[in-house]
């Protein structure tokens, strides 16, 4: 109870911003994926923190966070598979180089 809600939220927001920066700045697809994971986990921290401070009597936030962890894992698995198949085909995982379709 010593740590107030605002701290949790600040950490989560910071994590979200870091992840966001990662997505926008990383050229490597794996790096981008990591950024996205950070953003998702920032939201998770929020969910758990809100559960603890706002509705401790119901499990909503916590359960939600567990679901998100599971979903994010599935998403990352699919994403990695896509990245691998791109690598196999093009020998690159630089997202900038995937720009044959435009305009």
């Amino acid at each position, binding site marked *: 109870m010593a740590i107030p809600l605002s701290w949790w939220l600040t950490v989560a927001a910071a994590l979200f911003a870091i992840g966001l920066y990662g997505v926008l700045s990383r050229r490597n697809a794996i790096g981008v994926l990591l950024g996205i994971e950070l953003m998702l986990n920032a939201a998770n921290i929020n969910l758990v923190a809100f559960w603890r401070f706002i509705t401790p009597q119901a499990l909503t936030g916590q359960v939600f966070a567990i679901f998100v962890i599971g979903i994010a894992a599935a998403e990352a698995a699919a994403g990695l598979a896509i990245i691998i198949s791109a690598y196999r085909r093009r020998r690159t995982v630089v997202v900038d180089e995937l720009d044959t379709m*435009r305009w």
Partner: protein
Amino acid sequence: MLHSIWLVIAAPLAGVLLNGLLGRHLGRAFVGLVGVGSVGVSFVVGALALIELGALPAAERSIGVGMWDWITIGSLQVGMTLRADALSLWMVLVVSGVSLLIHLYSVGYMGHEDERMFARFFAYLNLFVASMLLLVLADNYLLLYAGWELVGVCSYLLIGFWFHKGDEEQAPVVLVDGSQVAVPPNLNPPDSGKKAFIVTRFGDFGFALGVFLIWSTFGTLNFTDVFAAAPQVPTATITAITLLLFMGAIGKSAQLPLSVWLPDAMAGPTPVSALIHAATMVTAGVYMVARNHVLYDLAPTSSLVVAIVGAVTALYAATIALVQVDLKRVLAYSTISQLGYMFLAVGVGAYAAGMFHLTTHAFFKALLFLAAGSVMHALHDVIDIRRMGGLRRKMPVTWLTFLVGALALAGFPLTAGFFSKDEILLKAFEFSPWLWAVGLLTALVTALYTFRALIVAFWGQPRDWPLYEKAHESPPIMTAPLAILAILALLGGLLGLPIVFGVPNWLSEWLAPIFAAHAPAEKHMLSVTTEWLLLGISAAVALVGIALAYWLYAQRGDITARLTVTLRPIFVLLINKYYLDDIYNAVFARGGQRLAALLAQGLDKAAIDGIVDGGARLFVRGGAWLTQFEDGHIPHYALGMFVGALVLVAYLVLR
């Protein structure tokens, strides 16, 4: 038959299905039979229904034939309902009658096409007839709009029917002083179709908004309900509605300033020009105004606009027709001009006169086009009148029927065109002598250009002997419709003889239940003497015009030639169609380009094929400018989304 009026639409539709799906396997004879026969069914059913309607008391001559409930939402109820009344059935008769003759003619005219194209042609043509009949029989604005758009689609497809043809360069006009005047080339068929589509889109946009405004104002879209409720609606609203609807008419009927597509529509096969771009579809605008006369009566401003646009267009197009070297284009400008007359009529409140002229015009203009087609058929698609001459000896039937059509168009006394045009001029005079004067001047020019074309093409000596030698009269399947139309063009005037003749004006009385029910009682301000006088003036003007044409083009060609040199600037202006096309190009295409270049700083990747012309180019450039941000880079996309998210949050939280 009255309650089975849907048959007139169903029959050509059945023809579309048969010819469209099976036509190319079944051979020409079958396709022709289906095409002509289905329209024949429409004509017979329409005629029987008309007779049946005539047997009813005048007050009951309006039958709604509901097929099914099209849509019911809330208070709005729109039925798939046809309205058989004096006006719509008259239109059915004109449309299906003229169509029948033109279909028959087409069997001969299109005979050289391969079977696939032949079947396709008749499928399109039948689809057009069905759509046009839907348009005139519609009981509500939605069905009207459906027909309105569908005839447009058929028109575009048929204009571009010979899509393999390219632009046709025109030989320059050589004046007697040796100088040359360049003649703008004829646009190729696909581009002509596209042009028609793009230009009429402007009008249709207004039309759609008009229908929408009607729905918002009245909460209903049925003609009868709207007309009944109209007097309670503020005049400003009615004016807005009628002007929006008229925008559609301007596009569809090729009036100023959207007249530029119709001459290029001549790139389509001649039967199409005759049916769609002379006799029926282009008159849809006139019909629409007449159908909505209750609204136009309540909005004098709109009616005035209609009348003025009509009068100005009539004169504008007639003057251009004076110098055209392409026989079909002479007729096309003539059509625009005659449509102007019709709008003049409905604008001054003479709806019956407008419908009368619509009818006679359908006869004689279809006749003129088919005769011109017969000439093209004989000369292997040569349509430049400067290469004709003396054709009357080779093609007597075509010559005689063309002469009859020309007489009617010029308003030669006692022909169909004389009576209908005179009635319009009479009504215009009642309304405003100025409009009458414009109409009269147009009549003079009309007589002049009509007989110029006739004399240059059929009179005198052949100018291109090898071509002349090959010329031959067309087969009976083509000349028979010509003969029938010629008779109609001669005698059609009997439908609406002037009141001063002391005989009943049949068409006017037939349509009276429609137009008199709401309109203020017909007021006869003009004395009998004045009417006779005006009639005499009209007759005189027609005769003078014809005589002048004979003198200028047959007798003293030398004077004409020198006159052309003297009036060279005017001649150049007219041959370039008042530069309207060029102005549009400059304003929309080049102006748009410059604007877009300014936006995109020299961005050039819009060498776009497809549908882009004129006015569309600005939008295309805009699109090109927008899509440059769609550069394929994932980080850029992510950044774009992030900025979007920021804006969204900032707006919602901070506002």
